[in-house]
């Protein structure tokens, strides 16, 4: 349980406002991808974390799905302006996956099957903010939504939640991913409408 700081109240806040600026709510689940949906064979599936010093931590499908999982219910915000509330997932927290990783890196570059990449500060993967999800709405994650497994990082625009995730590379210096290197915002906070570079 968090410890209460005496006399701290915070700003007035309205919990009804769940829609970031410029977004509209949708109830279906649109599909957007940079390329064709890769076919990933579960026998060959692997998730790897590689540190800046070259150390590797990897899991195959059986190892990965036997890790303790969580079932977050989160809102999704896509840069194409739809938001979807209360989506239900099952996945492994990045806190667990990163717990024993020795690193002094500040950045992460996420790699997908199909060669998609996206970058983010390592801190954004920690503290209950990110999962590698492999079930959606009680079902196996469909390939068009990133199955067998995708990154889920709901506090950033959805292009950061890399589908068909394959691994995470930890880096001392930031390195732009696929969309970030063609003009999308490097960070992508929906609440600050960070859609494109310069926003």
């Amino acid at each position, binding site marked *: 349980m968090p410890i209460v*700081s005496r*006399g701290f109240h915070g700003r007035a806040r309205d919990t009804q406002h769940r829609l970031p600026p410029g977004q509209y709510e949708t109830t279906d689940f649109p599909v957007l991808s940079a390329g064709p949906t890769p076919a990933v064979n579960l026998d060959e599936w692997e998730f790897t974390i590689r540190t800046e010093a070259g150390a590797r931590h990897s899991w195959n499908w059986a190892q990965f799905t036997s890790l303790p999982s969580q079932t977050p219910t989160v809102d999704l915000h896509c840069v194409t302006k739809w938001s979807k509330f209360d989506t239900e997932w099952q996945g492994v927290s990045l806190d667990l996956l990163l717990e024993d990783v020795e690193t002094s890196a*500040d950045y992460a570059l996420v790699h997908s099957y199909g060669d998609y990449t996206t970058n983010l500060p390592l801190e954004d993967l920690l503290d209950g903010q990110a999962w590698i999800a492999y079930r959606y709405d009680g079902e196996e994650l469909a390939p068009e939504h990133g199955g067998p497994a995708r990154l889920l990082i709901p506090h950033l625009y959805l292009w950061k939640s890399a589908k068909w995730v394959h691994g995470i590379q930890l880096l001392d210096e930031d390195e732009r991913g696929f969309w970030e290197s063609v003009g999308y915002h490097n960070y992508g906070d929906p609440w600050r409408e960070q859609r494109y570079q310069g926003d």
Partner: protein
Amino acid sequence: MARAAVSRRLGDRLSWKTARLADRRIESDVARTLVFEVPGWPGHLAGQHADVRLTAEDGYSTQRSYSLASAPDGESVELTVQRVSDGEVSPYLTDELAVGDVVELRGPVGGWFVWRPEQKEPILLVAGGSGLVPLMAMIRMRRAVGSRTPFRLVYSVRSPEYQLFVSELRRDDPGLDKTYLYTRSSPPQWPRPPGQITASDLSSAGWPPDFEPTCYVCGSTGFVEKAAGLLVALGHHPGRIRTERFGPSG
């Protein structure tokens, strides 16, 4: 670059620790140094930062990042916080938090914007406003380990009342050269007219590029963009310029 004993298990970084305010010092009209006792603090490097979490009685919680101001010193951790007048967190930390009160702290974070005593090249520190804080940790670390590595500090600040660590920096620190730039109003008889940092400030108070110094630049995004751009234009290799930016985040 040496990389000894700086990695930490991310599991240790992840855990929030209780930090009890043990002391507070006035640093300027708008800044306070908060000295926390943090049981289990794993130590840190000069230049790293920590996250502070505040939680209200109704459960509302918010976090901010602050640079660590002190050299590593056991379980004692110092943050120097400048009040952002419309901020949510900094006015609470500078004005409300009293000795004995608790916040939560997580860290240290960051492995790039750090100075390690085993570095042998000359060092240029370029600070804008409260961007001095992580650079001060480097100055304090240098002193704490008795390093003779030559340091130069170029400190740009709005006006004297915003200046941090005044008396500590006034003391003689052999091998540390200090240059102050004022952007709005300077002390009486100050030789340089108030104004933004220029190439000539950095060439006269910094190092020649062929000395291959490592340059650390910290301040607002605008300041960092400007100062780092000037260093590159003066011939410093971009790979030897490390930057840390902050925006107003109270």
